[in-house]
């Protein structure tokens, strides 16, 4: 089963992501609502998630800084950005993101991206 870690400051999005992923047989193994919390949780996760879904604009620590720290903990981690802020694209890739999607995105597109990322393993 594919496992996923959702990092986003929007509670409502957490709920719909979880419902969808559960419906599609994807295991949401962790959730964080800001960057600092995400780093803290990620450090303790064992096994690591197959995919991290990362927002950009979040309190305490943004998605780019969070990605850098998570990549330091586990350089093999696969981080997909899902943000409404297109300007963060270049920074996200520099920090180590593997894909960048702009909100709003259809779930089918999100699933396809996850599948492509996992296929490249």
């Amino acid at each position: 089963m594919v496992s996923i870690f959702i990092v986003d400051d929007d509670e409502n999005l957490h709920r719909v992501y979880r419902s969808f992923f559960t419906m599609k047989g994807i295991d949401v193994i962790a959730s964080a609502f800001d960057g600092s919390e995400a780093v803290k949780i990620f450090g303790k996760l064992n096994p690591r998630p197959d995919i991290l879904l990362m927002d950009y604009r979040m309190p305490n620590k943004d998605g780019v800084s969070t990605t850098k720290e998570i990549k330091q903990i586990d350089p093999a981690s696969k981080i997909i950005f899902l943000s409404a802020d297109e300007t963060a694209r270049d920074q996200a890739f520099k920090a180590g993101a593997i894909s960048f999607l702009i909100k709003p995105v259809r779930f089918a597109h999100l699933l396809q991206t996850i599948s492509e990322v996992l296929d490249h393993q």
Partner: protein
Amino acid sequence: MRPPTNHSNGLINENSSIHRSRFVRIIEAAGALVVGMNTQGQITLFNKRCEEVTGYSEKEVLGKTIFPLLIPEDELAGVLERFRRLVNGKLPTYSPQVHWITKTGEKRLMQWNNTFVTDEMGKVEEIFGIGIEITEWKKAQQALKESETQYQSLFDSVPVGLYRTTPDGQILEINPALVAMLGYEDKEELIKRNASEFYVDATARKRWKALIEQEEVVRGFEVQFRRRDGQIIWVELNARAIRNEKGEVYCYEGNLEDITKRKETEIALLAAHHRSEFLLDLMAHDLNNINQGIMLALELIENDDQLPPHLRESVRDTLAQVERSADLIANVKRFQSLKIEPRLLGSRDLSPPFHAAVRAVERAFPNKQLFLTTNIEDGKYQISGDGFITELFFNLLHNAMKMDSNTFVKVEVQANTVEKGEFLKIQIMDQGPGVPNSEKKRIFSHYKEDSAGERGSGVGLTLVQRIIQRYGGQIWVQDRIEGDYTQGANFVLLLPRGED
């Protein structure tokens, strides 16, 4: 007549070895007028130059009294007084300027030097006037004076500050407008200051000096000045360097304009612009987060097998509305960047941005399929454009996909060069509902409030038109099948070609 000569005391005496005719020739060689008179004022000598200037021949004037003949009435008294003094053996201490009246009645101005000849007893026998005509010189001098007066009047009355300063900041000249602008009582008070004292930022004058000494002329240098009362104003300096014969800068001269109001407006506008950008960014970001939640929630509902068919239809319609809202936000942001980004056009291969737009449109309509026929291939067509080419085709293709209610959407895109190869004509032909004639011209206009749901609502096509204007091209819409708009639309673009 004894030959005249210059004596050490200015007299000409009979002992001179220079003959009178030699004396006259020498004077004539210098282009001077020479007139001789006896003590009665009767003309005894009238040289060639006198003849030229007055129009009288020597023959005509010899023996006649000079005063009523050549001297104007209003100068007569002064001339007679000087003449009497000469008769009494007193040389004038200055060179008087006296008019002569010519034969035709014209007044000519002459500057005179007088001398006389005496007899053995020292009594004055003959008086000589040696003159040069200064009529034209006097006119030129008068014109110069008038010009200087006019310049001074302009300098004093012009509402722009004018100045002249030395490189070390000494103020050489300054006009009343500048005195008032800097809040001083009078010119004298201001001229004691050093120009560098007015600069709020001391390094600004150094930068300005470096610039003017290198460029000779500096225009539109904007800087802050401090007035006498401490108030800070914005000024624009325009100046040039004046160099001396050695090529060294002697002074700077220029004008200075108070641009405080303009600058304050610019600053306020910039702040408003930044605020609007910030708000737009915030709104776009937050709305798209909300859209994401709504979109996924609707998709969840859509995926529910128990959902009645009529509600499924409503959910799909609502999903389409959410997508429209996201498109609208994206286009408003693109509008903003279209205004901000500088126009740097270059020759670009049409194919990569066109096909990137095709892929983006396909992703935007996961439930539809695009059947595209095109002759646009890598390296085949070059256009003069910038990074907005993808946006241009994305919006046109998106419009075609959106308007066609079929799941399989057929679009044909054909490009060919026209106008002797200067332009590329691109036709985007769809098989959607088409554009009625009444709509064809206004389809690209912004905010069509009465067109909800029709082709062209939103800002997508307006954005297309703006991009084409940016490239110096044209766009219009015609029927795919001429005369029957219901067979689909043909969007025709004329874009300047790039270099192959």
